[in-house]
């Protein structure tokens, strides 16, 4: 008996598209040049569905579902950019801007920051929630790298790349809710971490200026993200 082809056809924003059954809505959208905003998702890392920016509407579903972890289904009708979704995305981003001290003008990633670019793209001109202005630390104890918690958005890309790709699991999260923060080892200074291999992958997956190389001044920190899909591809080929 011939096995049915594991390919599903679906509609995204009115366009008829197809995807393999294990692919997510985001995968198919990306292949077809449909932009869905996201900050925690990164090609090559596991998906956590945490930033909630990639939520999409699916016809017949009450709930909004994250495109990064929702697999395609036959006959699905997806809307990625309704007015309602735009409203939610703007609010979520605004909340992020209020959470810590994101001061673009003095940030090493100014002009190259994923959050900044998203905000521009979503037309955020001002933030209408009050800012928190928390006191956050900067850990520059590492020889080559710096973590500035003022810019961290807790996307956990650094945690995942360190665990899944580098295999060191130097990064993790401590604390709960608004007090959560990324830490190296058991909350020791990065410079005295015994597990860190100084590979620098975390620097380049970080969407903002929270992780950067020493010696970079304002707007100088360009991140090279291309290594990740390439690395994954090469590893798969070698297997």
């Amino acid at each position: 008996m011939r096995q049915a082809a594991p390919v599903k056809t679906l509609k995204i924003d009115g366009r008829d598209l197809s995807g393999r059954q294990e692919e997510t809505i985001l995968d198919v959208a990306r292949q077809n040049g449909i932009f869905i905003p996201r900050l925690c998702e990164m090609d090559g890392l596991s998906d956590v569905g945490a930033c909630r920016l990639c939520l999409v509407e699916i016809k017949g579903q009450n709930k909004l579902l994250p495109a990064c972890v929702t697999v395609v289904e036959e006959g699905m009708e997806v809307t990625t950019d309704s007015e309602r979704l735009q409203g939610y995305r703007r609010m979520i981003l605004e909340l992020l801007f209020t959470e810590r001290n994101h001061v673009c003008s003095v940030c090493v990633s100014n002009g190259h920051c994923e959050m900044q670019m998203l905000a521009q793209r979503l037309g955020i001109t001002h933030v209408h929630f009050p800012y928190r202005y928390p006191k956050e630390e900067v850990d520059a104890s590492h020889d080559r790298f710096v973590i500035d918690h003022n810019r961290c958005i807790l996307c956990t890309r650094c945690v995942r790349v360190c665990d899944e790709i580098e295999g060191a699991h130097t990064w993790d999260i401590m604390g709960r809710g608004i007090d959560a923060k990324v830490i190296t080892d058991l909350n020791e200074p990065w410079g005295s971490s015994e597990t860190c291999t100084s590979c620098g992958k975390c620097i380049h997956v970080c969407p903002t200026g929270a992780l950067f190389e020493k010696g970079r001044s304002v707007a100088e920190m360009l991140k090279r993200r291309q290594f990740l899909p390439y690395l994954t591809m090469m590893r798969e080929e070698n297997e």
Partner: protein
Amino acid sequence: MTPEELDQIAETEREAQSHFTQRVNVCVAAGCLSCQSQAVKDGLDQEVDRRGTKDQCQVKGVGCMGLCSEGPLVSTSAGVLYKKVEAADSAAILDSLDGTPVSRLVCPTDVPFFQRQKKIVLENSGVIDPDRVEDYIAANGYTALIKALTEMTSREVIDHITKSGLRGRGGAGYPTGLKWSTVSKSVGTQKYVICNADEGDPGAFMDRSVLESDPHRVLEGMLIAAYAVGASEGYIYVRAEYPLAIKRLKNAIRQAERVGLLGANICGTRFSFRVDLRLGAGAFVCGEETALIASVEGKRGTPRPRPPYPAMEGLFGQPTLINNVETFANIAPIIRNGGEWYAQIGTEKSKGTKVFALAGRVENTGLVEVPMGVSLREMVFDIGGGIPEGRKFKAVQTGGPSGGCLPSDCLDMPVDYESLARAGSIMGSGGMIVMDESSCMVDVAKYFMDFCMTESCGKCIPCRVGTYQMHRILTAIGNMTATAQDMKMLEELCDLLKHTSLCGLGQSAPNPVVSTLRSFAEEYRAHVEEHKCPAGVCGAQPVGETA
């Protein structure tokens, strides 16, 4: 363990108990223990010793009798319930066993609090000794398990649960039969059964009481579930804040293993089942099933997006059945009496009974089990005995931080899953907090938002930052510094959190705010526009004071 051996244990125990002509039961669940019921039990023991009547009079520590506010409670074989007993009352109580009751201690039981209850989950609470498996077996314990194992296929067990109409007692009310059937049909090399005993709603103590009063009932429910879905390993995830429940559970597991009701080849069948305890470290979010699974796996307790549901991919990636303590406690009676019997109780869509923890401004606080569908009015004014000090009823909060506040015009609504949801609250796990006119609803909303903010795991942005912003606004309203702009923001955030949060904690965090905004909009307005707190709670008292 064979059915005959079980009968033998029951027979021996009943025989031993029949020698006693007098019985005195002392509540040794956490509520009464906290008012020195252990001293009462020791006092009674000593007095019996002194009189040399040890062979005729049995003094037994039992589980919760319900009326926690009047503890320590003592019941006797003469059918009398005593309240607020002290160790010094021992002699008087023993004297009264064959004569007239000690009138100053008598707690009347012909009142609605006792008469309106229907006990299924709590049938053994306050009757059996939670530390002795023999006592449970003598009360028909484990007969449902033997019946399932020897007379029924797993399909038949699931059919009975489906027919019973039982729905999850943890809060969401998902049909239990459907969940079991899904796990049973899922494919995996190993399946798991997990009992969720991470009860964390403020003011709720149903699960704790069940575990402290009748731990074997929960084990029996888990065993039957494991047989039905094909699982051979189980975990009970119980919060570390319940040391007594943990102690009794550990003891119960050891006893069940000893008599051969847990372990390999139970009842001489091919069915094997092991149970282990996992202690929660105090995170409310670990009551959410995917966070709970992560915690059992030894990871950080944060939720993940569903699907895949735990029934397909749960603990260690295997099909996993997760039910709440009270759900498991309902299983044995359903198997013993049949699904149809259970389906006769309750309303059309909400079957059976529900245990509620009545707390707050009512005369009778404690644990009650009532058929689904009783009205809120009956709960508060008949069973609860009304509001003390002649004050006026204001609202009842159900479902903890995920639920809502129901005002007086909801009083005649039946208590079932659908009605509560329609009124903007949820059944939740069964906490019921009654509030009178001295409570400020803004303050109540702020209290629950503070809870959600501290308990948010921080994984998703809407919940992590949204709860912070909502708490800030509610604090500002309480301090009379909020503006109309803040009120608009508050409503925006309610909508955002509900629709974009990752898990149930964030999605339901706005409920206390939404429900009070709807029913008590006038109070919010008074705070914002007139800078007045009608209940006199906000501003006048230190910030953080709650009802």
